[in-house]
């Protein structure tokens, strides 16, 4: 099935332009404003919870193989069948085999990034199995033949009017442009599918290794319906979702829900331990758990291992000044926003999303928002350097830049240039282009306080000439690649250093 392109363009740059030029999209994106400070509030009020959660995630990653083994044994003891899927293709094959063997005509899906990652919905449809997304946002995106644009609110890019039009076009029903009317209509429409579906496919927010319990977080109740009515349940679980102990969810779940939506807990939590048991009248007869790798374990032991601590809360998207302007489709990848910019090249071994790490201002808002303390901005810088070289991004546990990140106490620490080693100035095996020479020179000059001061003085002098009376320069000759899409502000008439010196000398007071 082909998908409608919401923000056309061949590169991130072009797609970002399309997104910014789309007034309906920009209007819809304003709805994200209410999540802007959610993560910051959680960090301020629940710092200790955040630290404990970060520690639990690292504990798993230091010995992931053992925890996966433990989880597998627990799942099997509870009556589930465990499948290992090294690649997305393997994951699709496992699910299609189950669907064929069980003679499945309709599958209901609960929102899951892992199933998006392996493109499961399309694979099922191609095999003649009807696949219905049941999260309202995902359903809207599915009937519009689009892709989700946000991992928590997949249809954030659509206004109410657009949503209603899409649903009317697909169903022929008369649906009011009214939130309650649309909600009631969706309940009736999707309930029919729940009642006939033979199989449900869900993701998992966590998998407890000691009990084999799958934890699913929803607000709508579609996750509960998926794990209650169909006779087969398949959970697609990326390997890093495992947590050591069931009791760890007491730390991770409140943190996830508070950061993702601002709720103390989501409206529904499902904790599933095995299939239906003797004497029970509902719940699936079979529970299959597909453990998806897709190049994840190759990241273990590298600096990129940190990315596997991610709990998919969406906080880094909500605070990112780039995401908030261009929305998810501009990334042309399953995972968008800051975490997507890191994860997309890593999962594809550098084959996809090579321009994404560049689509960042490195402002560090994502790092600050992350509830499990992933140094996203640092990883973006590292990826920019690694992606400049040919070859696999992460070899068999032999990454090219695997020196540990230095401890990070304030923003800027941990960036390679903080130690006087600007990555763009590293001379090793670089072609001698004007650009490379220019960056080298810039790095050398700015590495010296005197050079930095002189460059400022020079810029102020040149500024008067080049900028004239305007506050911003656009289309500066020779710099168009930069100034076409960025404002180059006029340097201040006096530098901060000058003003500070004058203050220290008592020449002025402020």
């Amino acid at each position, binding site marked *: 099935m082909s998908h409608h392109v919401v923000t056309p363009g061949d590169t991130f740059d072009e797609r970002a332009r399309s997104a910014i030029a789309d007034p309906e999209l920009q209007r819809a994106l304003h709805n994200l404003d209410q999540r802007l400070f959610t993560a910051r509030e959680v960090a301020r009020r629940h710092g200790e919870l955040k630290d404990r959660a970060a520690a639990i995630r690292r504990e798993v990653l230091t010995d992931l193989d053992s925890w996966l083994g433990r989880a597998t044994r627990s799942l099997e003891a509870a009556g589930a069948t465990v499948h290992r899927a090294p690649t997305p293709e393997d994951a699709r094959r496992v699910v299609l085999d189950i669907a064929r063997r069980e003679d499945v005509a309709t599958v209901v899906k609960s929102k899951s990034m892992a199933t998006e990652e392996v493109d499961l919905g399309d694979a099922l449809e191609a095999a003649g199995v009807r696949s219905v997304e049941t999260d309202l946002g995902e359903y809207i995106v599915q009937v519009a033949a689009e892709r989700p644009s946000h991992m928590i609110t997949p249809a954030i890019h659509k206004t109410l009017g657009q949503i209603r039009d899409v649903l009317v076009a697909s169903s022929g029903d008369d649906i009011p442009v009214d939130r309650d009317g649309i909600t009631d209509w969706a309940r009736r429409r999707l309930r029919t599918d729940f009642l006939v579906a033979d199989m449900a496919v869900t993701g998992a927010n966590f998998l407890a290794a000691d*009990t084999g*319990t799958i934890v699913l977080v929803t607000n709508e109740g*579609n996750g509960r319906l998926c*794990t209650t009515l169909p006779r087969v349940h398949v959970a697609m679980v990326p390997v890093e979702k495992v947590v050591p102990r069931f009791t760890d969810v007491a730390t991770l779940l409140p943190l996830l829900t508070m950061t993702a939506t601002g709720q103390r807990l989501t*409206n529904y939590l499902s904790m599933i331990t095995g299939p239906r048991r003797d004497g029970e009248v*509902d719940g699936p007869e079979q529970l299959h758990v597909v453990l998806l790798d897709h190049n994840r374990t190759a990241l273990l032991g590298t600096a990129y291992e940190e990315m596997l601590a991610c709990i998919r809360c969406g906080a880094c998207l909500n605070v990112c000044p780039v995401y908030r302007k261009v929305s998810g489709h501009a990334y042309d990848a399953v995972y968008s926003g800051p975490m997507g910019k890191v994860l997309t090249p890593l999962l594809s071994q550098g084959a996809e999303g090579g321009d994404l790490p560049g689509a960042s201002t490195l402002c560090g808002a994502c790092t600050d928002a992350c509830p499990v303390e992933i140094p996203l901005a640092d990883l973006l810088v590292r990826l920019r350097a690694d992606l400049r070289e040919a070859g696999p991004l992460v070899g068999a546990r032999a990454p090219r830049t695997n020196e540990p990140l230095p401890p990070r106490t304030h923003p800027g620490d941990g960036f390679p240039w903080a130690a006087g080693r600007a990555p763009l100035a590293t001379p090793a095996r670089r072609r001698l282009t004007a650009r490379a020479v220019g960056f080298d020179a810039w790095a050398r000059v700015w590495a010296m306080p005197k050079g930095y001061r002189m460059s400022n003085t020079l810029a102020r002098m040149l500024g008067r000439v080049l900028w004239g009376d305007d506050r911003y320069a656009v289309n500066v000759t020779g710099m168009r690649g930069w100034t076409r899409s960025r404002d180059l502000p006029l340097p201040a008439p006096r530098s901060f250093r000058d003003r500070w010196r004058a203050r220290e000398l008592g020449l002025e007071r402020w």
Partner: protein
Amino acid sequence: MSTDPVSPVGALVDALVENRCTVHGPMSAEDGAARVVELALERAGSAAIALPLRDPAVVWLELESRLGAADARLLHPDDPGWRHGLPNAAVGVTGCVVAVAATGNFAIAAGPGCPRATSLVPPAHVCVIRTGDVVATFADAITRVASAPLPSALSWIGGPSRTSDLEMRTTFGVHGPKTVDTVLVDG
């Protein structure tokens, strides 16, 4: 109605109200049973009431005989018509194993005679919360449920089914119940 935030039950009442549950009590077992019957009949109208006969709260408050005496149309999990009848039932009545005062969430354990669907498929849910099952925090509740073997499904509920997928404004009843009545009973 007690709203003393110092006691866990008072805090639970506040949190449930914030989660858009309708709260009744805390009250005695006798009054609580009468209130559940009244609520179930009111929500059901002429449609069926889904009643899991082996649910501890249903047994404790003798809801089967009380509802039977009121001539209610009851649907039991042991009925052969349960699965096909449930989508047409108007209300499901259950108890719960633990309730969290800080967040207003309560957990229902699946088991023989206690289907997962009772609190999920009908458009209304009436839940009995025993005050002895109220704990302060989610962590306390997890410790409590982890002290015994876990059921096949432990379903945590915060209130009516909701979504924010329409321009990030909340609407109710998208998949699960549109109304949740909680009856707090001393015990």
